[in-house]
């Protein structure tokens, strides 16, 4: 407990309301389980987390920061909570244009392919690979364990590159079954 450390997480405008709605769910585990101090700075529109005397674990701060960040990116509180509970979960972000330079309609179509009708494709990938995916226009965020992130990323990249969803299903199913067999 040397210096007090602090983390700041900026909140974009579109996430302001969801933050307000889920504030209770957010700060309860941070304060109670991680023994940190949290506040939302209205002026700077930042969520600030600080260590205090009661903080036992120094890594708790990082975890809390990641948790809040995940929520701000668009994940559900319960899903983001897994970051606090499990050590080996990661958060990966990339853009659609990173995979393939698409413009205009192609980009839209790619995003549409990723999402699928009613989000079906995205949900399928989530379920099979045990990850959570946030599709924010051209940005993609994946939350999960390392292997699963890889699987999901492969599937999404395939979709971006133009594979039909059925094929992608088949692939991820095969990979997932193999991974499951190993354990």
């Amino acid at each position: 407990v040397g210096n007090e450390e602090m983390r700041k997480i900026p909140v974009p405008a579109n996430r302001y309301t969801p933050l307000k709605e889920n504030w209770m769910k957010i700060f309860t585990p941070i304060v109670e389980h991680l023994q940190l101090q949290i506040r939302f700075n209205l002026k700077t529109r930042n969520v600030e987390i600080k260590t205090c005397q009661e903080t036992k674990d120094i890594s708790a701060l990082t975890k809390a920061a990641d948790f809040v960040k995940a929520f701000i990116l668009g994940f559900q509180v319960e899903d983001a909570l897994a970051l606090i509970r499990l050590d080996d979960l990661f958060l990966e972000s990339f853009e659609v244009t990173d995979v393939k330079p698409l413009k205009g309609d192609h980009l839209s179509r790619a995003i549409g392919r990723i999402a699928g009708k009613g989000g079906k494709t995205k949900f399928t990938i989530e379920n099979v690979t045990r990850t959570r995916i946030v599709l924010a226009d051209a940005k993609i965020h994946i939350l999960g364990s390392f292997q699963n992130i890889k699987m999901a990323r492969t599937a999404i990249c395939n979709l971006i590159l133009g594979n039909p969803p059925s094929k992608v299903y088949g692939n991820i199913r095969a990979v997932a079954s193999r991974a499951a067999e190993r354990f």
Partner: protein
Amino acid sequence: KMAAVEGLERCLRVAGAAAARPERFLSVQDGLAADFKALTKTLYDLSKARGSNVVRGSPLKELVIESFDEEQIWQQLELQNNAVLDFFKKSIARDANDEDLCLLSDPEEDSSNAEASSDKELEEDIMEIETEQKNVYTKDKTKAKEKQSKPRESKMQKYSDEDSDVDFDIEELEQQTEIAKKTTSKKLQKKSIVDDKFFKLAEMEAFLEDVEKEDRGEEEEGINYFEDLLSDDEEEESEDSKVKPIKSSRDLTYKDFFDPVDDNDELVANTVEDGQEEETDSVTEEENEESTSEADEINEIMTENMRSKEASKKVTFSLPDDSEIEDSIDMQSEKSIDPIEIKSSFEKRQEKMNAKIRSLEEELLEEKPWQLKGEVSGQKRPENSLLEETLLFDHAVRMAPVITEETTLQLEDIIKQRILDQAWDDVVPKEKPKEEAFEYKKRITLDHEKSKLSLAEIYEQEYLKLHQQKTEEEENPEHKEIQEMMDSLFLKLDALCNFHFTPKPPVPEVKIVSNLPAVSMEEVAPVAVSDAALLAPEEIKEKNKAGDVKADAEKTPTDKKRERRKKKLRKRMKLREKERRQKLLEKVKPEQGTKLSKKAAAAKLKKLTKEGKASLLKDEGKDKVLKSSQAFFSQLQDQVKMQIKDANKLKKKQKKQREVSVHKLKL
């Protein structure tokens, strides 16, 4: 007396007959043995009957042979013999030395005497030495008896052995030695340290002993405990000389056993003629050897023999070169050829070496054998010569293992061990795993909906499942095993108790496959369209034998023909079908049938043409109209048009005429 002569003659005959066929004695001859026993008895009785005043002999008047075995007969003879032995020895010696007595010139006769005299046990019963005849008889008898009886005296054996081994005349040598002895009997002396020009210790001792003996002359019968006992041979031989210096075994030297190394014959000649002292000394030494052992006596005689001119046995060192030489016998033969040119062993070795060198040199100069000449083809070497050679060559192929007894034994050991271990190499029947396509799809259900559980909960569940599974796995196999065992047991028990037990029929597995899209079967909630169908494409449409669908350009003539055939077949079938149906229809409903049939149409056409309503156009080939429908209809069109035109024209003309009249009227 006549009876005695007759008896003797008979004995002689028997003995002669036996001697004539000596080979019979190789086997036991019971008949002859009995004859000889009788013969012995006769001779014994005769001798006893004749009697002798000089010597008493044994108290037995006659030899008893009935139901007496050999041992007992021998003992009887021994009694007699021992009694008269001494007397006979002395008398023989006396007679042998007696010059008046004419000894037989035949050396064998002499030898027989010598032999007989040197025997300890006389095997003859009668020794009437005066009679020459008797000598002959005895000689024969001894010879016969020798051959017949087991030589009790090993000396005899050795004599005979020596005779066979060493190729010389022992008798002659003995004779010679006796002569030698006689000439030098006076000078049997031993050299000692204190000997001088004037004094010789041995002489003194000899003199003293003589004197003592003279004094003791009457006490011949008593045993002189202090006198050194000599063997009978020596006693007899040196009886006259009465000098017997003793030589101990420690003083034996090489000279006593072997010839001097150089030029033996010369030495012998010298010793015999000139250097008698040396020889006599050695002879005396030999003769006076106090040796009770028979070997020494034999050696003595042997050395005496070797001395003789004709003695040809020589002991040589076994040098390496000498081993190549033939046996001593051969040497003897060589020597007997050239007795003067005996070479030393060194010279002989040299000769051999030279011979060897010569042969080696010749070999080197000669042409080499084919084995040493580089590459040799078949023509340059003798036939099948390679078969005798052991060749070394590289094997390109791995050789098959040589089956020896050891390998078979090893194999058998392995087999036995396997049997004991019950470790068979049986082929395990492989079962093809039944992979059903549908099951694969069910492995991972694709949930297209947003999962109700949050990520944290998912991981939580997974974690729990992982940890629970371990405990479950441990239990389940045991349960399964138990279950299986119980099932099998109950099955058997049921079979035993129920006579009318029938096992459960195998339930046929029914799989209902409906050709519905997968989405309706798999998905929990009906969602939008999916392409997947349950049935495989092959099940929907059969693939043709050729495989993929081919474009016209790709088809081979066979494909085309195949297709044509199929098309024709199809058409044929269709036609047949149609006809069948038509027939059926005609039978059932005649009106409808006739309407559509070809026959009916033809009939109708005929009727029409006959009536004149329709006319049949004949196809001559000139008219283009009939060739194609287009032409026909265009012509028809033209015709109609023409008609219409005409009609219009008429109409127009009529109209014009009417217009002129109206004008006129107005005026």
